[in-house]
């Protein structure tokens, strides 16, 4: 019936939020009449007015700071950073303020804001347009970090993020913006913000990932199935807090784990997942935990980008390794 792409699902959720709650406003560069460079806000300014779907001057620090101030004063701002690579200037407001306002005022003020940003590589974009430093955000206490990997999850998780009483960074895997379609009911139903999803069930090995890598993971899962290896595929969804229970339960069952992400290896979020298992599930482990992630390099310009992005093939290789380990 209502087969949507991921970016359409984002738009649907934004429209729903604007419709349902007069406190919701959107702000960001080119989100108004232009509808956002990825069209995530297409038509929303026309429908809800330029005051509620507001083009900002080109100033990421201020976008974040304005969201903090507006949230503290009763609005529900949903700010867009045009590409994750331009989010660094917003970090000061995110880490030093948004994430702390409730804590430092003992609950007197709070910061119910969402910061959306398209992230990740694989679409041969110019430099600084393919960043994926979700682990840095997940390290900030007081922030929630959410990453959808399908249209329906984008819709439900974004609604949850907007309704959440605390600040949420919502990272959208732009490689998936238009590459998958899924039925999305505009029922206003939010998904839980702190639950991982098991996308396929298997007893042999656990594969944890998020965002665009879910597609590579799915492909790897299918290929492994032909070899008779059944994979518990976990889509993290919430990168902070992490649904550790779901992962631990899976590994308790499978005894093997591969983590996949497109951010560089060192201090990537895969480390947290592996570390958690090394602390809490060591005796369940039948094989080393393999992380499939690029080496610690800057994501190359498009012509060599494929040398960087992890592939289903690499995941298959890693799964075979942990399966063969003894």
């Amino acid at each position, binding site marked *: 019936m209502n087969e949507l792409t991921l970016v359409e699902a984002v738009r649907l959720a934004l429209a729903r939020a604007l419709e349902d709650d007069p406190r919701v*406003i959107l702000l960001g560069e080119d989100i108004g009449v232009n509808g956002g460079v990825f069209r995530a806000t297409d038509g929303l300014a026309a429908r809800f007015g330029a*005051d509620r779907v507001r083009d*900002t*001057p080109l*100033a990421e*620090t*201020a976008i*974040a*700071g*304005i*969201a*903090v*101030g*507006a*949230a*503290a*004063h*009763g*609005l529900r*701002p949903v700010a867009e950073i045009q590409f994750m690579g331009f989010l660094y200037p917003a970090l*000061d*407001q995110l880490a*030093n*303020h948004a994430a702390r306002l*409730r*804590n*430092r*005022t*003992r*609950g*007197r*003020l*709070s910061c119910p804001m969402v910061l959306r940003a398209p992230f990740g590589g694989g679409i041969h974009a110019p430099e600084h347009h393919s960043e994926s430093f979700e682990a840095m955000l997940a390290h900030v*206490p*007081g922030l929630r970090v959410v990453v959808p990997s399908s249209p329906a999850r984008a819709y439900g998780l974004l609604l949850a993020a907007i309704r959440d*009483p*605390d600040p949420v960074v919502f990272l959208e895997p732009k490689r998936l913006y238009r590459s998958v379609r899924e039925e999305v009911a505009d029922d206003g139903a939010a998904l839980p913000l*702190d639950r991982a999803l098991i996308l396929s069930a298997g007893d042999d090995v656990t594969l944890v990932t998020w965002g665009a890598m879910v597609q590579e993971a799915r492909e790897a899962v299918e290929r492994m199935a032909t070899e008779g290896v059944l994979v518990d595929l976990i889509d993290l969804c919430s990168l902070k*807090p*992490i649904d*550790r*229970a779901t992962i631990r339960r899976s590994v308790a069952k499978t005894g093997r784990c591969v983590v996949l992400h497109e951010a560089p290896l060192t201090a990537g979020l895969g480390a947290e997942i592996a570390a958690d298992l090394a602390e809490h599930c060591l005796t369940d482990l039948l094989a080393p935990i393999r992380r499939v992630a690029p080496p610690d390099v800057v994501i190359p310009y498009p012509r060599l980008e494929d040398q960087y992005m992890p592939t289903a093939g690499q995941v298959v290789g890693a799964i075979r390794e942990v399966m063969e380990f003894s």
Partner: protein
Amino acid sequence: MARFDFGPVRVLDQAGNVETTLPGFARDREALARHYRAMVLTRQFDTKAVALQRTGRLGTFASSLGQEAVSVGVASAMRDQDVFLPSFREHGGQLWRGVTLKELFLFWGGDERGNDFSGHRMDFPACIPVATQFPQAAGVALAMQAQGTGGVAVPVGGDGATSKGDFYEAMNIAGAWALPVVFVISNNQWAISVPLAAQTRAVAISDKAMAAGIPGGRVDGNDVIAVRAMMERALERARSGGGATLIEAVTYRLGDHTTADDSKRYRNEAEVSAHWKAEPLVRLRAHLVQEHGWTKEEEETLQRSCREDVETAAEAYLATGLQPPRAIIDHLFESVPEDLAQRFGEAGYE
């Protein structure tokens, strides 16, 4: 160089004589006395806070010695629906807006409860990362504009803060969107050890308003009457949809930057002594004496009453027990996520 004309630059001279027409509120003895008391109370608070710090009973503290008129004048011009976003040196304004002395002590003593204050509940706590309050103020103003409350956001920062990009980004957007914000710069001429001349080549900080296409006004920050008067005009302008204004209040930091600072390392005593002549309390007192027959007894009573308030508050602060350990996780989110609660237990932080 052109400068926006934005109302009286100075009302009282250093001796307390009226230089220009007195604004309405400043003809009222009671009103003036209230401002005077607020400044005296601020100074007493500052003195006590430094003393507590020196004896190990308070954290690093930033005194507002010499700058009381800016803080009090700004706050006294504000209304209930307005929102104050102070830097870490605006004790006078915070007190005027209803934050209690005890809460201030708690904040500076290192207790978050000092920010859960009894004052205007929508006001922001003191801002430590310099200039970050400016974009927040634009956000508050955006909310007020959307809500139609008629409120104005009033962020205050120092001269040093005008070197940060945050300040310009916020002013520029507030200009573009005609937001109800009055940006206040309390120009005390030093940013720790860096004098204003090393901070910028701009002729006046108020000129920086031109970068945003908004009016900029410059006022004698040691004249509480002038500060309030200029603030009132800027607030009125914002309230009536006229948009943002930048106000530079020129004052001087008579003390060290904080209790962790030793300003003798970088500025000479002569400069400081010279500025003592212009300090704001003496000036308003002289005016009160000359124009309103302010008596020695009134002065003594006021001083004593302020001192008592400060002492009582200090004692109450010192008697305040610690928050329970769990307080470090309880307020991070509206409800504590499972992961956090569990780790809090595991990590032996109980």
